[in-house]
C-alpha cells in the first residue's frame, strides 16, 4: 500500500493566492474608499496611481501618533533617528479613545521594499495591523504609509512556527490564512470589502430568518433549519469557562458567523465542534484591538471592545472560512476526513511505538474512541486556551497543517503518554485519553509536541509503508 502523507490533505487551499486574485478583481463595485478620501474607486490601475501619489506626499517621517494620546489629548511620542516614531502607550487610557487600537512602534517603509529582517518584520506587522483597524481611526487619520510593501511570508511562517506574540497574532494569522493581503497597499481595501460583504450577507440572512414566513419560492431546507437550531443550542454551550464568549455580544456574533458559514456551505452545514474551532479565531481577531488587555475571562466588553467587535466578527468569519476549507472533508456526510486521519494516526503510532499500539489493540481500544474529538475540534478542547493559540501559530506556519501536520501532533500527544497508557486497562485508557492531564501544561510542552511531530513528519510523510 502506497502511503503518502500529502494524501490526507484533500483540499489544500491556496488562500493567499485566492485573496490576491480577489484583490485584483476589486473594481468599482465596492464602496468608495473612505480611507483615502479620493472619491469613487475606479480600476486597480487608478488605485495604484492614486496610492503612488499619496506615497510620494507622505514619504519622510511619520510624525503623527494619534493612537496613543495621553489623558490630556497630547500625543506621547519620541522621534527616532531612523525616522520611525516610537510611541509610548500611556497608562490609564480612557475608554473614549479606546476605539483606536493600541500600538507600540511604527516605521515608514520605502515604496516597493520587502521586509526581511525579523525586527523589520515586527515593525511591518505592526503597521499592517494598524491598517486593519483603519475604520476605527478618527477621520482624516491614517496609519503610516506602506505602499507596495510586501510581507515576506516565508519569514512570517518561520516566525509563526516558533509562536507569535499576542500583539501580532491577529495580523499574522490573517496574513497566513490568506485573509489579509500580503501587499500593504491592498490591506485596507480588501478588508473593507470583505467586512462589507460579511455584514451584507449576515443582515440578509438574519432578516430572512423565519419571521415572517419565507415565501414558498425561498424554502428553507430541513438541513438548514436543523443547523440553525443546533447552532442556537451549541453557542451557549461553548467553552463555559471563558466568560468573554458568554457576553450577549459575543454570543450573537458567534451565532451569526456559524449560521452564515452553515448556509454558505450546504455540503456539510454546521457540525458540532465548529463552535470550538471558531473560538481561537474570534478571540484573536477581537483581542487584537487591545492585545495587552483583553482576556478570555473578561466578563464584559468595554466601549472599545464593542466598537471593535463588528470588524473582528467579520474577520473571524473569513478566517473560519479559510481554515475550514482545508479540512472540509471532516464535516461532510460520514466525516470521511476524520476517518482517514484517525486511520493515519493509528498507522503512525504503529510505526513509532509498536508496543503501545499492540497494547491498545490488545485492550480493544479503537482510535476513533479518543481521537475523533481531536480531529473534529482540532485539539481546541484538549489544551488550555493560550496553548491552543500557541499550537495554532505553528499550524498556520504552513498551508494545510490542520489537515496533515495535525495528525503528527496527535501522534506525538499519544506517544507522550505511552508509558502511562501501557499500565492502564481499556476503560482507564479511554477515560485518560478523553480527559488528558494537560491543564497544567505550559508552552514548553507544546513546543516539545511540535518538535516531535515535526521530526516524525520529516521521517514518514510520503514514505512507503513498511
Amino acid at each position, binding site marked *: 500500500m502506497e502511503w503518502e502523507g500529502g494524501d490526507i490533505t484533500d483540499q489544500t487551499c491556496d488562500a493567499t493566492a485566492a485573496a490576491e486574485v480577489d484583490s485584483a478583481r476589486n473594481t468599482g463595485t465596492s464602496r468608495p474608499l473612505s480611507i483615502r478620501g479620493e472619491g469613487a474607486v475606479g480600476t486597480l490601475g487608478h488605485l495604484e496611481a492614486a496610492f503612488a501619489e499619496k506615497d510620494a506626499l507622505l514619504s519622510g517621517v511619520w510624525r503623527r501618533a494619534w493612537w496613543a494620546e495621553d489623558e490630556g489629548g497630547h500625543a506621547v511620542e519620541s522621534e527616532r533617528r531612523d525616522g520611525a516614531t516610537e510611541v509610548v502607550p500611556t497608562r490609564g487610557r480612557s475608554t473614549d479613545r479606546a476605539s483606536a487600537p493600541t500600538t507600540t512602534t511604527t516605521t515608514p517603509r520605502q515604496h516597493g521594499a520587502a521586509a526581511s529582517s525579523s525586527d523589520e518584520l515586527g515593525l511591518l506587522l505592526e503597521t499592517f495591523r494598524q491598517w486593519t483597524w483603519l475604520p476605527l481611526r478618527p477621520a482624516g487619520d491614517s496609519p503610516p504609509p506602506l505602499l507596495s510593501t510586501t510581507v515576506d511570508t516565508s519569514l512570517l511562517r518561520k516566525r509563526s512556527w516558533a509562536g507569535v506574540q499576542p500583539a501580532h497574532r491577529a495580523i499574522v494569522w490573517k496574513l497566513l490564512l490568506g485573509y489579509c493581503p500580503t501587499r500593504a497597499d491592498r490591506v485596507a481595501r480588501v478588508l473593507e470589502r470583505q467586512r462589507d460583504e460579511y455584514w451584507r450577507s449576515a443582515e440578509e440572512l438574519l432578516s430572512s430568518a423565519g419571521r415572517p414566513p419565507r415565501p414558498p419560492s425561498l424554502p428553507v431546507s430541513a438541513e438548514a433549519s436543523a443547523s440553525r437550531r*443546533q447552532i442556537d443550542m451549541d453557542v451557549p454551550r461553548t467553552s*463555559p469557562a471563558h466568560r468573554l464568549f458568554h457576553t450577549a455580544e459575543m454570543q450573537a456574533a458567534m451565532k451569526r458567523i456559524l449560521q452564515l458559514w452553515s448556509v454558505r456551505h450546504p455540503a456539510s452545514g454546521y457540525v458540532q465542534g465548529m463552535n470550538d474551532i471558531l473560538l481561537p479565531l474570534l478571540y484573536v481577531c477581537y483581542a487584537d484591538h487591545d492585545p495587552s488587555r483583553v482576556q478570555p475571562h473578561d466578563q464584559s466588553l468595554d466601549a472599545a471592545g464593542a466598537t471593535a467587535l463588528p470588524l473582528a466578527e467579520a474577520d473571524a468569519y473569513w478566517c473560519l472560512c479559510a481554515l475550514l476549507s482545508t479540512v472540509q472533508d471532516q464535516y461532510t456526510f460520514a*466525516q470521511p476526513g476524520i476517518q482517514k486521519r484517525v486511520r493515519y494516526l493509528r498507522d503512525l503510532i504503529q510505526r513509532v511505538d509498536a508496543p503501545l499500539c499492540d497494547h491498545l489493540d490488545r*485492550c480493544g481500544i*479503537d482510535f476513533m474512541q479518543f481521537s475523533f474529538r481531536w480531529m473534529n475540534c482540532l485539539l481546541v478542547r484538549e489544551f488550555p486556551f493560550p496553548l491552543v493559540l500557541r499550537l495554532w501559530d505553528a499550524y498556520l506556519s504552513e498551508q494545510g497543517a490542520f489537515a496533515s501536520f495535525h495528525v503528527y501532533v496527535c501522534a506525538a500527544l499519544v506517544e507522550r503518554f505511552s508509558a502511562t497508557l501501557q499500565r492502564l486497562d481499556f476503560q482507564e485508557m*479511554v477515560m485518560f485519553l478523553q480527559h488528558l492531564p494537560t491543564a497544567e501544561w505550559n508552552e514548553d510542552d507544546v513546543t516539545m509536541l511540535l518538535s516531535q511531530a515535526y521530526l516524525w513528519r520529516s521521517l514518514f510523510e510520503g514514505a512507503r509503508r513498511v
Partner: protein
Amino acid sequence: MSGRLEDEYDYLFKIVLIGDSGVGKSNLLSRFTRNEFNLESKSTIGVEFATRSVQTNGKTIKAQIWDTAGQERYRAITSAYYRGAVGALLVYDIAKRSSFENVERWLKELRDHADQNIVIMLVGNKSDLKHLRAVSTDEGTKYAEARHLSFIETSALDATHVEEAFVSILSEIYKLVHKRGLVGGEAGAAGSSKAGGPMYRAGQVETISVTDGAEDGRSSRKRCCG
C-alpha cells in the same frame, strides 16, 4: 480513573445513551457515575465514556456507558458504538416536543445498528422543568407501552430517578441474561464469542468484555489486565 477494586464485578454490561442534542444525556451520565450536574456542560463530540458498578440481585454489575453526540451528522460514526451494547437509554427532553417526536428515528437507528435483543428504556429527562412540560407523563408511558419499552422520567438536575433508571435497565438486562441462559456455566471466551452478542459474562478467571464494539467479528476479547 477507576481504582482496581472497582474492577471486581460479576457482569459487565455496555450501555449507550442516545437521543437528540441537548436533552441531557451527558448530565444523566455524570449524575449517575460521579453524582455531578453541570448546567453549562459542553456539547459532546463523538462519544464519551464513563463506568460505574452497582449491586443488584446480589451481583455486582459494572455498567460501561457510552454517551453519544446527538447531532445527525455524527450518526455514521456513533452508530459503530451501538455494536456490543446490551442496553440503550433513549433520552428525550420533556420540555421539548421535537425531541420526543424524534424518538421514532432513534429507535430506527437502534434497529439498524444495534443488536436485536438490546434492552431499550425510554427516558423523559428534565422532569424538573414542570412549568415548561411539553410531553405529558401519560403520553410517554403510552408510547413506551406500545413499543414494549420500559419508561421512566428523570431529572439529572435534581437527581430524581437517575439512579433508578440505570439500575432498572441493568437489572432488566441481568434478568434477561438469566432467563435466556446465555451467560453462566463456564467462564471463558468460548461461551460468549458470538459476534455482536448482547450478553457478556465478566469476572472470575477470565473476563470478557465488549470493549471493542467498533470492529466486526472481534466483539469479544479478553480484557487486558495491564
